[in-house]
């Protein structure tokens, strides 16, 4: 017998991503998928945005950190007081929508994550662990153990009906310019990070991830004098691949360009 399917492969992921997006919208959460190669400065950029640029005080951010192993990035978020959940993919080269659904329910509280109501997130640590474990035993999503910022949250991500403020959820994807392009996580914005030290030819070599992004952030511009990186070439290539996407040039270490990026993020979150 023959079954004619004619269906998209990864439809399951796309469906889950659509559910995530609907849940985030219902809970007033603005989700950003931050992608880029390992070492391009994604976490340092977040530290600069939340810390120096003061976004933490204005958007009540939370972060989902995706890494193959370890919780180094989550510890860095924890150190600056940003609620964080670490996902260890244990070998998988990208995050998928099901991992985000599990991690977000931990960060947002079950109700907030499912968009049914505006949850208080007031669950005990045991409930959190349990919530994370559902359907995710092998992926090993783990909250920061003993982290004070993950205790019943003083700043629940899901807003109460009286405070319709938008909250920012940054999903820092596994460092990878290839696989991350194929998996929608339910984000409203995809931001790709490219560091000066990676070279200016990456848009030509990995077009899919750049074409699917809403903004490009060129990091480590303090290194420009020491390299042959041409910012103009990157800007031209991005214009060709994603004409509407702005290109930001930043040095997270020196703070250069960070305020402009923070303003743009605030603007996009408000226009949600």
């Amino acid at each position: 017998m023959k079954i004619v399917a004619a269906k998209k492969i990864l439809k399951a992921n796309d469906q889950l991503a659509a559910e995530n997006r609907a849940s985030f919208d219902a809970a007033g959460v603005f989700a950003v998928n931050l992608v880029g190669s390992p070492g391009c400065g994604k976490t340092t950029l977040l530290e600069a945005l939340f810390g120096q640029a003061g976004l933490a005080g204005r958007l009540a951010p939370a972060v989902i950190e995706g890494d193959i192993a370890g919780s180094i990035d989550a510890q860095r978020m924890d150190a600056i007081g940003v609620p964080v959940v670490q996902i260890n993919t244990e070998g998988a080269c990208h995050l998928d929508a099901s991992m985000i659904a599990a991690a977000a329910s931990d960060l947002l509280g079950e109700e907030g994550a499912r968009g049914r109501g505006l949850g208080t997130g007031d669950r005990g640590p045991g409930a959190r662990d349990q919530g994370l474990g559902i359907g995710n035993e092998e992926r090993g999503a783990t909250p920061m153990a003993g982290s004070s910022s993950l205790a019943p949250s003083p700043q629940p991500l899901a807003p109460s009906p009286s405070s319709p403020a938008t909250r920012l959820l940054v999903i820092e994807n596994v460092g990878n310019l290839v696989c991350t392009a194929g998996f929608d996580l339910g984000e409203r914005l995809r931001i790709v990070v490219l560091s000066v030290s990676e070279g200016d030819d990456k848009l030509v070599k990995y077009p899919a991830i750049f074409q699917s992004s809403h903004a490009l952030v060129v990091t480590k511009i303090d290194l420009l004098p020491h390299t042959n990186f041409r910012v103009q070439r990157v800007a031209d290539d991005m214009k060709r691949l994603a004409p509407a996407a702005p290109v930001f040039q930043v040095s997270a270490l020196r703070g250069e360009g960070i305020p402009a990026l923070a303003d743009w993020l605030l603007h996009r979150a408000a226009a949600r």
Partner: protein
Amino acid sequence: MHEIAIADAVIEQVQGEVRRAGASGQVTRVALVVGRLSGVNPDSLRFALDLLAKGTMLESARIEIVGQNAFCRCAACGDRAEIDDLEARCRQCGSSDVAIEGGRDLLLESIELEEC
């Protein structure tokens, strides 16, 4: 890219379609469409499917992969050319006012199975 994850999704989807059709048995043939711009390498996908299909209803299935062409259509001069990678500039007139058509799909076309 992540052909293992794609193969995993294909197997799950085939199993789901077979269940939905109320059928059972061994799958003899799976037809897939892989767009040239989808980022999926057909050879790697085949290799991953070989590995992951063991012990499933797809174990002895023939995997057929059909490519899907991509085109670059120019709004300035009207040219439409087949392309192999994401290029957003018209080869005829150099305009960047172009639209990419096709080549991005990853589809499960059809499944054939021998019912038991």
